[in-house]
């Protein structure tokens, strides 16, 4: 079966419907599926629930979909870099479900692994715990969190082979591996596609079973949010 599509629009063809739930990988702007997000914007699909750790910045990443008002609800842990988001949320134009970052990661991992719920100490005694089942284990209180799945997962990796096996690079891995497992359909974009056999099987991060469609991204801007450097010491 051929998993490789010629571009982002082709890879997403037939997968969209209004009101769908989409997971998008990345932490800040690092490791985001920027080509697939562009195609998502161009498709005009609406009323999206988007599960992603962050919401991009005003003019890049998922911020593009906020500008076009395609997102109805975000499920995130931190959205502090996006003014459009803050304005839309405070004006009640956007629903928001905050999840602690570790809870979000584990909910996605669980969803992809067929685990409907789990207990965690994170958030006990806070707003996050309201309305959730509490249970004691060995004298400590935990809350129940549920697994998350999506109609479509969009992930970014560094390299893939033609089987859809993926390798991520440095901290661009973040939420991508779990999201790849939790989509009914997972579409991956990568910087390079190699022939099968060209990747070391011991070094595959996401096995190809989790990836249904694959593209080589046309362009990678890889914008940096906080370019922080140090000066070379004088010799």
């Amino acid at each position: 079966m051929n998993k490789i599509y010629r571009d982002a629009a082709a890879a997403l063809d037939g997968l969209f419907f209004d009101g769908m739930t989409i997971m998008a990988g990345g932490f800040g702007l690092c490791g985001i599926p920027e080509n697939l997000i562009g195609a998502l914007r161009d498709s005009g699909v609406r009323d999206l629930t988007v599960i992603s750790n962050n919401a991009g910045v005003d003019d890049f990443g998922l911020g593009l979909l906020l500008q076009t008002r395609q997102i109805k609800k975000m499920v995130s842990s931190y959205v502090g870099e996006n003014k459009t988001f803050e304005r839309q949320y405070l004006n009640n134009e956007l629903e928001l479900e905050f999840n602690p970052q570790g809870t979000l990661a584990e909910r996605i991992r669980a969803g992809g692994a067929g685990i409907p719920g789990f207990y965690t100490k994170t958030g006990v005694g806070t707003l996050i715990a309201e309305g959730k089942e509490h249970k004691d284990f060995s004298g400590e209180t935990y809350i129940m969190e549920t697994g998350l799945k999506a109609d479509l997962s969009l992930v970014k990796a560094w390299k893939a082979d033609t089987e859809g096996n993926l390798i991520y690079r440095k901290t661009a891995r973040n939420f991508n591996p779990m999201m790849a497992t939790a989509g009914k359909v997972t579409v991956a974009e990568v910087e390079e596609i190699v022939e099968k056999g060209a990747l070391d099987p011991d070094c595959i991060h996401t096995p190809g079973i989790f990836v249904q469609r694959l593209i080589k991204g046309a362009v990678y801007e890889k914008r940096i949010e906080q370019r922080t450097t140090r000066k070379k010491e004088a010799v």
Partner: protein
Amino acid sequence: MPWTRDDMAERAAKELKDGFYVNLGIGIPTLVANYIPDGIDVTLQSENGMLGMGPFPYEDEVDADLINAGKQTITELNRTSYFSSADSFAMIRGGHIDLSILGAMEVAENGDLANWMIPGKMVKGMGGAMDLVAGVKRVVVIMDHTNKAGESKFKQACTLPLTGTDVVDMLITDLGVFERNGSGAFMLTELAPDVTVDEVKAKTEAAIEVGNHLS
């Protein structure tokens, strides 16, 4: 003279012990990395998926795929490993990280911490803070003692939505250091230069004890 941001970071760095795995929060806690004492070897964890965080890069080393949890460009070391967010929070929630140093908006006398939202005003999110305070063995908070209006941020009870309950083990402010054993009361144990116990008491809403050597 109250402590500066760098002074507070330098004081917090004294809490590092040899061999510790440490997570530093965004803001002042990030500065702690500049003051790691000589002879102390610590490994810094970044919750976006990195263990063994190096210094900021030189201009020609900047890599968009290599950032810390504050989204700043960073470098790797020869001990570095990379992993997913799920593995990262297994380290944090599973109790494998020795120390977390975090910023705060409010700390209460019972160890409650608030640092993630101001209802109706500011929407940022908790990021990994709720996981860190729930799972890391020891939590040190650095914050200014008062807000811009001069009101105490070290309170009887937090007024902002909580990040965690009974989680703060040590508080470092620009006025001094407050330590806590288990779930007991905070005790003032150190003062910034030229700051008096009376000044700290006047600027503190929380009920505190004062160390014998200071009173």
